[in-house]
């Protein structure tokens, strides 16, 4: 794979980030004829610079708004409030060539390796269509070459994959084709929403490896969305922990996993069943509260109901984000002695350094 033109990337890169979420909230439902509203994302700000090729993990339990975040970034849905910016311009206003550019620049890998293929077409379809649409490759041969290169880059043999129907391939092969597809388009960002949650453990590693390869060789930043802290720990440089639509902790992955600050993160990490019989699950029972009455409908910390360290003030107002350590932010009153961190700076923190790639 020829390296990209680094200079072009740098040009103006520092000025406008590739993607930016500004105070984005997403509320589902609540319309005229539908059910009660669900706040899937609540006032989230996040910047993805595009010039630092890192892997950023977003973890959180089911329903915490991870997929919503991904869909917003991909422009599949529009925010209820706040704005999603692509290179500084509002995503919902993009038209024509700019829109196509965005489409090409931000690619995705989805969760379900079965549903992502149209059963009606050969797997080539997912590769040829974007080539046509984005007018990549001048000739048929050139396009073929692009496809072959991409497949080989993720460790697939083109003759074993091209020309087949999706059901003739294994889940892992399919998922890697999608990774290859993303790679082939040379995007500026890949959003991977639970790309391995539906494949076997042995394939998981292979797929993550190819993602990692893409990230390393093409210098494409990747947003890795998962509920599996174990893999997040392995692939990513930075991590964002979400809880019920809000970011509760963020920082360098090593710091967050080995020294979690937020009670929720701690609970999560305690619950990871590490594949090591010698390392037992934390015995601490969760859910026990600190003797604090938490009213049904309070305006405070979202985690207060389940927090073992809940304090009365936790139910009064949402805690601000504190800089708990260098490159490690947390939104919890336990750290109120630390300096607060404005939301916008959260992203800056996440790109500061990386224990893996800065080496």
């Amino acid at each position: 794979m020829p390296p990209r033109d680094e200079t072009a990337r740098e040009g103006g890169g520092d000025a406008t980030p590739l993607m930016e979420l500004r105070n984005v909230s997403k509320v589902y439902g609540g319309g005229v004829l539908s059910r009660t509203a669900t706040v899937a994302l609540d006032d989230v700000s996040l910047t993805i610079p595009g010039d630092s090729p890192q892997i950023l993990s977003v973890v959180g339990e089911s329903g915490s708004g991870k997929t919503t975040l991904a869909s917003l970034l991909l422009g599949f849905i529009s925010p209820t409030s706040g704005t999603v910016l692509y290179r500084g311009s509002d995503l919902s206003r993009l038209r024509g060539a700019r829109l196509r550019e965005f489409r090409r620049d931000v690619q995705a890998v989805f969760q379900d390796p079965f549903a992502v293929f149209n059963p009606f077409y050969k797997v080539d379809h997912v590769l040829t269509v974007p080539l046509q649409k984005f007018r990549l490759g001048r000739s048929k041969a050139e396009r073929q070459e692009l496809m072959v290169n991409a497949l080989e880059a993720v460790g697939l043999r083109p003759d074993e994959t091209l020309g087949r129907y999706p059901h003739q391939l294994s889940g892992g092969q399919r998922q890697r084709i999608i990774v290859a597809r993303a790679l082939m388009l040379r995007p500026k960002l890949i959003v991977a929403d639970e790309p391995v949650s539906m494949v076997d453990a042995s394939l998981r590693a292979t797929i993550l490896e190819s993602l990692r390869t893409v990230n390393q060789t093409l210098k494409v930043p990747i947003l890795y969305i998962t509920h599996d802290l174990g893999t997040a720990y392995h692939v990513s440089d930075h991590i964002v922990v979400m809880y019920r639509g809000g970011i509760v902790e963020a920082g360098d992955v090593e710091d967050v996993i080995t020294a979690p600050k937020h009670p929720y993160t701690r609970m999560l990490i305690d619950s990871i069943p590490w594949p090591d019989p010698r390392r037992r699950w934390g015995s601490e029972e969760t859910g026990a509260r600190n003797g604090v009455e938490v009213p049904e409908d309070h305006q405070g910390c979202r985690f207060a109901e389940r927090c073992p360290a809940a304090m009365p003030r936790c139910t009064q107002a949402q805690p601000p984000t504190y800089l708990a350590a260098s490159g490690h932010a947390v939104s919890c009153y336990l750290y109120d002695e630390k300096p607060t961190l404005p939301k916008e700076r959260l992203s800056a923190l996440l790109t500061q350094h990386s224990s893996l790639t800065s080496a």
Partner: protein
Amino acid sequence: MISRRYLVRRILLLVTVMWTAASINFFIPKLSPRDPIRERLMLAATQGGRNQTGLEAMVEAYNQQFGLDQPLWKQYLTAMLKVVRFDYGYSISQYPRTVNSIIKDALPWTLGLGLMSILIAFVIGTLLGALLGWPRCPRWLRIFVPASMLTSAVPAFVLGFLLIYLFAFQLKIFPLSGAYSRTATPEWSLEFALDIAKHAFLPACALVLFQLGGQALQMRSLMVMTVGEDYITFAEAKGLRPRRIFARYAVRNAMLPQVTGLVMSLGTFVFSTVLVETLFAYPGLGGLINGSIQVLDYNLLYGITMILVFAVCIATLIVDLIYPLLDPRIRYEKG
């Protein structure tokens, strides 16, 4: 259980349905070149004797009386107001009887025959389908799949005249037509009730046989789907009696869409009922529809149409309202 918003939505739908039906019924005759009043008068003239004079004047007078000389929008408004009041005016063919009085005489018969047969078809069909979709279904029962397809493939009225020929005419087990013996006097007695039942049997059979297959086949495939559900596997793992799994777990769940399907099939059912009633000279709305077609009594047709539309709407509403009782997952509150 039921939110106001949901009710409002349902009633709004009902109103639109009635309004649409009423409008279609109002405008179609206006587009037609036929003039039922004139036709009726001419027919009366030719039948009564000879030398009818002043026909045109009478047509005029009648049109005036029925308000047909008014501007269209006015007629439309009047018609809609009448729908609101369930007032369909006079029958043209049975003048001076009102449409309502005619319908009132016929409706109980159709309700009796129609409701009974659709319920029987539903119950038997559902049960049969449930058995057929059950993995332990005995082999001999399986022949009901093609059998019920066969009876459903023959239109109800064809079934009807085959049944008449066989059971009423050749075997003389059942009467040939009508809703009760002509020589009997309507009264509240067991004898008369039996007489009615005997008369209703063959038309009901035709309707049931025709509907049965569809119900059974639909239930069968619902059942097959349900049997594949995890909760059935678990129920079996729980060591439950097969009977209980069948009734409480499989049928109970497969029934839910089946009930919705029942509502959807009401329309076609009404169609079959009309034809079968005509065939059996049954004194319900069906025969009435046929009669009003023949003489183009569109006031009556209009009335019957609206009553049936209303009935179907109400049936749908009722099913919707009892649905949450069947399926605890459905609640119309809030959402």
